[in-house]
């Protein structure tokens, strides 16, 4: 490994950590937070270096952890770093947000970059927690009830996801014969683990919570609809990809795993169509984008499940799909804010750009989305899979066209949330999101294949059908039942309220237990239990 790559990998981690350390000194804090747009630069360089020089291995250790950058990690790291640079610079160029927000932002960024280079379980878990939990501070520290509700639900899913992953990781580590916690080693031991299927189930559930996979999808629409434009952009773009890299890293792809693979594919499929179906009933563009994320992450899971079934796991292809979503979804949120802030009717070039950007998610030819579809196509062959893929493309196109038609409904308040630089340059950013994937695609496949007429046609017609359906929907849109944003979350809230209602009863019980007489009885019972266990045991 060259000295340069070693230094870059090291700096990827330590640049944000150094700024974080600087925040502890009151007089440096403002400067450190204002400079945080520079922190992802080493990550961007490391990612690009890895991609241009694919054979070099990038691995180092620091703080007792292993850090490693492979091709899928590099794809996501490079664009995530780019996104963080652009949005952070734009946000702090306007005015410095308060310290709580700034530090939450920096912590989330550190986690977001760190998950892509973590080489062992503990490091991954640490950065995964960082990208999940401090994000709460980016949108929920207010007295606004809607934000507080969204924040509490977000936190519940984040912590629950962490909990499930902790058990999964402990199971991974426990069955590694040599006591190693390197991801590479534990994954090599997973196929023979007695807990294999349970571990896979917990991993999917844990990362599924981050990805908004059914039935854990409810937090995402709530979160993105209350988060400010820049926050929604980085969380939907970079934040969620922690879940993608998690699935890529921790699902076994070496040998065919029929049962688990199909189960994951089905879950992904349900999410993909549920996202579209519920998204179509929504009016707020941010909420529609959230449901589109649920749908897109479902597509990744479906592709991943089918790849697992066949034992043909090409993590870079899946990462590329994530890369495209990262760029497009973040740019869409920024565009929503910029368009409303400009307060002018959408037309001409702007309309073309935002439409191309939105339909990129449905695989519109010549956009990055067409390449993304192409990159996962090998796993989606077979009659059922290709029919569902086509249906999913039509659905995505429908949802995104619905989004475009709903752009005029954007609440005015989003205008104030959008940084001035984003308002000025949103078209450049959107174009970048459409075109940048072409730069990265050579890392996973042949670009020219995307330009063959047959591919162009098979990419184009579902988009056209979907757009047509969206136009048709306008005729009966008022008669569609409105599903509340967060759909299934309502059920969870009812369950939670029921459980919380047990509280006073529990306190009563505690008061009784702490009576002398009751404690005396407990004392005797425990003694007898110990005694009988000892003698009979």
């Amino acid at each position: 490994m060259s000295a340069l790559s070693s230094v870059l990998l090291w700096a990827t981690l330590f640049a944000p950590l150094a700024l974080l350390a600087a925040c502890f000194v009151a007089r440096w804090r403002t400067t450190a937070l204002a400079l945080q747009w520079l922190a992802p630069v080493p990550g961007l360089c490391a990612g690009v270096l890895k991609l241009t020089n694919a054979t070099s291995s990038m691995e180092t250790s620091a703080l007792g952890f292993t850090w490693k950058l492979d091709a899928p990690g590099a794809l996501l790291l490079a664009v995530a770093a780019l996104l963080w640079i652009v949005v952070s610079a734009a946000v702090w160029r306007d005015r410095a947000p308060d310290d709580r927000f700034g530090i939450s932002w920096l912590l989330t960024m550190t986690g977001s970059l760190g998950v892509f280079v973590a080489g062992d379980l503990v490091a991954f878990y640490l950065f995964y927690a960082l990208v999940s939990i401090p994000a709460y501070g980016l949108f929920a520290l207010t007295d606004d009830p809607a934000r507080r509700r969204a924040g509490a639900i977000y936190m519940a899913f984040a912590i629950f996801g962490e909990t499930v992953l902790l058990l999964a990781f402990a199971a991974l580590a426990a069955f590694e014969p040599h006591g190693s916690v390197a991801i590479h080693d534990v994954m090599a031991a997973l196929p023979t683990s007695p807990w294999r299927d349970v571990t896979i189930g917990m991993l999917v559930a844990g990362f599924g919570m981050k990805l908004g996979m059914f039935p854990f999808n409810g937090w995402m629409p709530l979160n993105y609809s209350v988060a400010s434009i820049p926050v929604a952009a980085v969380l939907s773009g970079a934040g969620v990809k922690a879940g993608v890299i998690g699935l890529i890293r921790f699902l076994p792809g070496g040998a065919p795993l029929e049962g688990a693979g199909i189960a994951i594919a089905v879950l992904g499929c349900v999410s993909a169509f549920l996202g579209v179906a519920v998204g179509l009933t929504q009016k707020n563009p941010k909420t529609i984008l959230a449901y589109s994320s649920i749908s897109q992450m479902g597509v990744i899971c479906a592709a991943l499940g089918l790849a697992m079934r066949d034992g043909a796991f090409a993590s870079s292809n899946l990462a590329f799909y994530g890369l495209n979503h990262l760029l497009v979804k973040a740019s869409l949120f920024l565009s929503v804010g910029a368009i409303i802030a400009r307060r002018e009717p959408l037309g001409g070039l702007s309309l073309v750009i935002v439409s191309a950007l939105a339909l990129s998610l449905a695989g519109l030819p010549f956009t990055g989305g067409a390449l993304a579809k192409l990159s996962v196509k090998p796993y989606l062959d077979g009659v059922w899979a290709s029919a569902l893929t086509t249906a999913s493309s039509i659905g995505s196109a429908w949802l995104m066209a619905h989004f475009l038609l709903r752009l005029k409904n954007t609440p005015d308040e989003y205008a104030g949330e959008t940084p001035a630089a984003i308002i000025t340059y949103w078209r450049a950013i959107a174009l970048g999101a459409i075109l940048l994937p072409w730069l990265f695609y050579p890392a996973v496949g042949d670009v020219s294949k995307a330009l063959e007429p047959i591919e162009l046609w098979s990419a184009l017609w579902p988009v056209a059908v979907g757009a047509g359906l969206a136009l048709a929907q306008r005729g009966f849109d008022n008669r569609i039942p409105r599903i509340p944003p967060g759909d299934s979350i309502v059920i969870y809230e009812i369950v939670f309220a029921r459980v919380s209602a047990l509280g006073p009863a529990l306190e009563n019980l505690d008061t009784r237990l702490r009576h002398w007489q009751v404690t005396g009885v407990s004392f005797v019972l425990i003694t007898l239990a110990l005694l009988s266990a000892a003698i009979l045991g």
Partner: protein
Amino acid sequence: MMELAANTPAGSLLVLAILLPVVGILLAFALGGRSAERIALGLAPLSLALAVAIATAVARAGKPVTYMIGGLQPPLGISLRADGLSATMLVAVAVIMIAAMLYARAKFGVPEGSGESRSALTFWVMVQAVWGGLAMIVLSSDLFNLYVALEVLTFAAVPLVCIEGRPEALVAALRYLIFALFGSICYLLGVALFYGAYGTMDIILLSQQVEAKPVVWVAAALMTTGLLAKTALFPLHLWLPSAHSNAPAAASAVLSGLVVKGSFFLLLRLWFYVLPALQAEDVMRILGALGSVAILGGSALALMQARLKLLIAYSTVAQIGYLFLVFPLAAGAHEWSHIGWGAGVMQILAHAFAKAAMFMSAGLLAESLGHDQIARLNGAARALPLTFLTLAISSVSLVGLPPSGGFVAKWLMLQAAVASGQWIWSAPILIGGLMAAGYAYRILTPALRHGEALLKRPAQPRREAIALALALVALGLGFTPESFYDFIEIGRPLTMGPSP
């Protein structure tokens, strides 16, 4: 295998470690309350140095350091013994004690020109007595000597609860006293039975002779329940919430962080050092089950509390529950028992530091805001940033998020649970973590929101820094090197199960 060792070179350090606090107490009485503070603070660094020296000696030798009092071998004489676990505890006790003393100076200090006060003298004497009692508990190798240590600990801890003389504190202290005495009596009965059966009370001699017979089981059951009562294991926790929440903050930190670990340490001694040969797997399971109930019950009750100090006290009830998972997870001579043992020790340490830091922060918060109502914390983090940073860092450890000692403890516990096939224990571990996140959320999020918290008294950065330092230790435990887990195995008999 444990053998009867003669005095090892560093053995006399063990006597000094116990004597130093005693000297401090005698000097304080002799020279009067005005100098009690100076004596305690002057001797504390020496005790810390002793603890470190003992730990170094144990690590160097790779085996326990022992000392025979009066040169007499057990069963005639009484021996002191420092193994990996006791040396670790000794250092942790010293660090937390020094922090608590420095923190307490603002309240119990006697500045120049003011008269001596009874509460100050009581505090400085009793806090040293707690220190001495704990040192005796971790270093004694004789069950009767341990009984004496246990009583010293109780009689030193009770006055700390009611030092301020408020009526509810007196009631709490009385409950604590009566219940602790009840526990001691049970323990003493068990010791007497052991002595009757084997004619010795030396841990090592007993461990070589015990066999599975009724008198041993009765003795063990009595001692165990007595110690459970002293450790306040749910549902025997009647005294803990009121005692820990009514004591002054410096005392709460010591009581919650260290004193309950004293009686727990005796349980470890009993089951892992005296009785390991008996392979009492069902007893281990019952202790684990009681611990699980404590985790769930304590956490759920912590979620309901309206006052911060009570919330933290109930959190202690839950965290004590985690300690008891060490019994099913570290018993026997399996590969996973090593992991389970490490998890248990890490849980002791992580909770000691995090909880001490939390109680200190809660005390500062109550002094500055004039209340500790969780519902009225809006905006408090802006007014008391360091205090809330400490609460946040301690919570990270309690919840079990990395990097922290609490994370390492849970991580190892889960691995031991999975590897030993006792996956059932992973449920309370994880659910407890979720509920801990819930109560941490209740404290931290309102404080971070907007709002103006009115300070009745300005923040006290120096005392805040002491609490923060302890919280940072809890965090730093997340980077514990591998060699530590070998160190805490020094002197632990691994005779359970088929010997490897």
